[in-house]
């Protein structure tokens, strides 16, 4: 077995991991980036549509272009990385010592490190998780990500009559992608009374191609013996229960699931990490450090983001946290203040702040509202927004000066109020 020592191990080489490894190396940490595929870059590599990097690079790039920008940065600075390297388990030895067991074609590697930055991203929900019953024909059911991989990495067309379940951004983008290939996108089915994706994608991916969106509808049942033949859909009431009278069938050969992402945290759960049921990811402080000292989490493994720019930003924050940890042999003792979810806040990250430095808050609302004030009453902070929607993450940068008064509080509450 090969044994090596590092200051930080970045697990997962998507945008969060790339950004984190670059930043860690810049800060002078002995860093290795571990990726289980045979190529770095993660999911954006297969995203041939634009919308990446408007904030980070101040340019509208495709996912692939965005990742290549990061590759350029990485090459300049020379980050060590491993491909086809599958993280099998993590052992906690001491507060400043972890061992990451990695399976690689060169053999088992035991990587010892002071810190870990965990950036493995999210996974997609399956038909079973969203309680779709009926047949399991095997052929004709794909997650949106799988369909995208097939089409844009391997040039395979999954089907020609498409029903998309879930109106998250991935689903909307795939609706357009299929339409561009000449497939008939029959409809996009959304359980909630509002779309799951950004307004920009509703317009550019559905309206521009006249693809119908059924809000407040649920895909109940799949029918098909050897391949999908139809989907049974029903309108739902205000409790999201299907209304028996409002059931109908949509003939199709393909069902694309875009029913949401779940942070991929299975390895972390095994080492007793505390998770936030609202985000599905770990509970973190403003360094993005989890309850396990020296393990940091960023990107979609922390909270499902809608912009790659935020993912990269979190990756860099986590690297800075790791740097601070390595320098001080652990993060200092801080009287953490809990960030509490107030009115119309579904989730918020980070969960703990110190009030001693600048932070960035990422939050999502429960329901759409117009002309609102996002406020933190404890520190008399407010931010005016003309629109809040569950699909669009609220990002707020709070300076150390703003947070000063929070130092005397136990908690700060983030809430959304209509004006």
């Amino acid at each position: 077995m090969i044994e090596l020592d590092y200051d930080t191990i970045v697990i997962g080489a998507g945008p969060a991991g790339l950004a984190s490894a670059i930043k860690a190396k810049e800060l002078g940490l002995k860093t290795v980036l571990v990726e289980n595929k045979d190529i770095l870059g993660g999911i954006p590599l297969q995203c041939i549509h634009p919308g990446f990097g408007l904030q980070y690079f101040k340019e509208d790039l495709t996912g692939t272009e965005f990742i290549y920008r990061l590759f350029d940065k990485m090459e300049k600075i020379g980050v060590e990385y491993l491909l086809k390297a599958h993280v099998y388990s993590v052992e906690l030895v001491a507060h400043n010592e972890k061992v990451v067991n990695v399976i690689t074609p060169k053999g088992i590697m035991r990587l010892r490190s002071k810190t870990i930055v965990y950036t493995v991203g999210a996974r997609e929900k399956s038909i079973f998780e969203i309680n779709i019953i009926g047949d399991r024909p095997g052929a004709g059911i794909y997650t949106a990500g799988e369909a995208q991989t097939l089409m844009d990495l391997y040039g395979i067309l999954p089907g020609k009559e498409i029903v998309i379940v879930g109106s998250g951004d991935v689903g909307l983008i795939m609706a357009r992608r299929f339409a561009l290939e000449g497939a008939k996108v029959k409809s996009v089915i959304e359980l909630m009374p509002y779309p799951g994706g950004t307004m920009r994608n509703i317009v550019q991916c559905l309206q521009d191609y006249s693809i119908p969106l059924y809000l407040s509808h649920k895909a109940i049942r799949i029918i098909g013996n050897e391949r999908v033949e139809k989907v049974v859909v029903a309108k739902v009431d205000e409790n999201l229960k299907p209304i028996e009278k409002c059931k109908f069938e949509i003939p199709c050969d393909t069902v694309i699931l875009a029913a949401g992402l779940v942070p991929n945290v299975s390895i972390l759960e095994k080492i007793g990490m505390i998770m936030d049921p609202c985000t599905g990811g770990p509970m973190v402080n403003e360094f993005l450090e989890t309850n396990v000292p020296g393990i940091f989490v960023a990107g979609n493994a922390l909270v499902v983001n809608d912009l790659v720019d935020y993912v990269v930003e979190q990756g860099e924050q986590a690297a800075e946290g790791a740097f601070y940890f390595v320098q001080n042999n652990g993060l200092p003792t801080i009287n953490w203040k809990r960030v509490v979810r107030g009115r119309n806040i579904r989730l918020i990250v980070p969960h703990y702040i110190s009030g001693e430095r600048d932070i960035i808050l990422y939050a999502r609302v429960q329901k759409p509202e117009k002309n609102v004030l996002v406020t933190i009453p404890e520190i008399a902070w407010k931010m005016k927004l003309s629109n809040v929607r569950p699909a669009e993450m609220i990002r707020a940068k709070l300076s150390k000066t703003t947070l000063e008064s929070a130092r005397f509080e136990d908690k700060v509450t983030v809430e959304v109020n209509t004006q």
Partner: protein
Amino acid sequence: MKMKVVIVGAGVVGSSIARVLSMYDNFDIILVEKEPDVGWGASKANTSIIHPGHEEEPNIHPHRAKLCKEGNRLWRQWARELDIPVKWPGELMIFYNSEEEKIARKYIELAKSNNIPGVRIFYQEELRKMEPSINPNAIGAVYAPTAGIISPFEAVIAIVENAVDNGVRLLTETKVEGIKIAEGRVRGVMTNMGFIEADIVINAAGIYSDEISSMAGVDSGFTVRPRRGEYLLFDEDIRIKPERILHTIPTPISKGVYAITTIHGNLMIGPTAEDLSVEAKEDTSTSEIGLEYLWNEAGKLLREPPSRTKVIRTFAGLRPEPPDGHWLIEAYTEPFGFINVAGIRSPGFTSSPALAHHVVNLIKAKYDINLVMKRKWNPYRSDIAKVGHMSLREADKLISENPDYGEIVCYCKTVSKAEILEAIKRMKKIGLKTVTLDGIKFRTGAGLGTCQGSFCRCRIALLISKYMDMPLHKVVVKKKPYGIGEVKELLKTERSE
């Protein structure tokens, strides 16, 4: 001259018969299966229990009682010989009130008359010590220590691999459409792939065994009804997983609802028991009513109900249900050479090895054959080496011999490229015409985990496409291809129109 035997159906019953017959020099054996792979009927989607045999009425179902007990014993040997994953945690039939306790006591008597070892009742405190996951409302349970849990689909694959190794020929995607009979004797079977000559035809067609039986013109009126059983399967990391097999008191149509930890480490709840019409032989759909019933039963069985967010799969299987629950096991003289092993409902899986020996004895006695053992019969088969099942040190050694073991394809279940390639090789070796993604899943476990294949399915398809030298979109998932063509396919057609 060897006797030509055609076995119809490569489920656990047909495969077991093939294996036992392959011990003898007397036969040329062809195992015929309509599906692309073996064990895709009732053998695949069931509760995966090796039953002790204390639930069978010896006076009403003598075959079931005798062969279940004998099968339970034989599976220990078969699992060792064939490297089939199995464990023997014992089972607890739980009762919640004195009415149920009365019924439960009946099984102590049945255990006595069937000679099943170690069956006894445990109450309250002792019961909770034995099985901490149990619902505290349980007042007691009938404990049967000989119950086991097996991987049913891997078992059938192992048996077939061994049978083929011992000379059995497997013909998949071959559907029997008729039986040729002349001068009162079986002459062969008509199939979609042509005529296959046979002196003996053994009907082990499970849910379709009534149709095959009527092709031979015997036992008119014999029907097999599909009894549907739905299941909930949970992620490995769910908090409460029973160590022992837990189940509720049997009802007239089912053995009760079970809560088990499968051989792959998942909590599984099921089955329901719903009789479908004789024609509904392919209806393995799940239903809202069925799954809700299971959620309710899960709450009754376990200390706390499983979390709804931890379901990774729901599925249903069809069990063959013969009239009055009677297995139809008969070697006919009219037509001579036709054998029914039909309507093998529960405890069919458990009984299969014993059933196979029983059928061979039947052939010997009924057709007056002097059985001659092969001099070289190989009882052994080993499983694909699995990186996820070994220590890191063992894995390291294996990788140094073959780096493909170090390339992980399925992240949830830690399945390597080498395992996928070995599965493809073995599928070709037993003679499968189509290497399906489902077939790879059942052999390696790739795609059985949390993400249900959304990360690995396309990479496995790539490996199949490469090693079977076929276009990626034509790789078959279960019965139909993965994609319809290449990107631009539809635009091309449009233009040509």
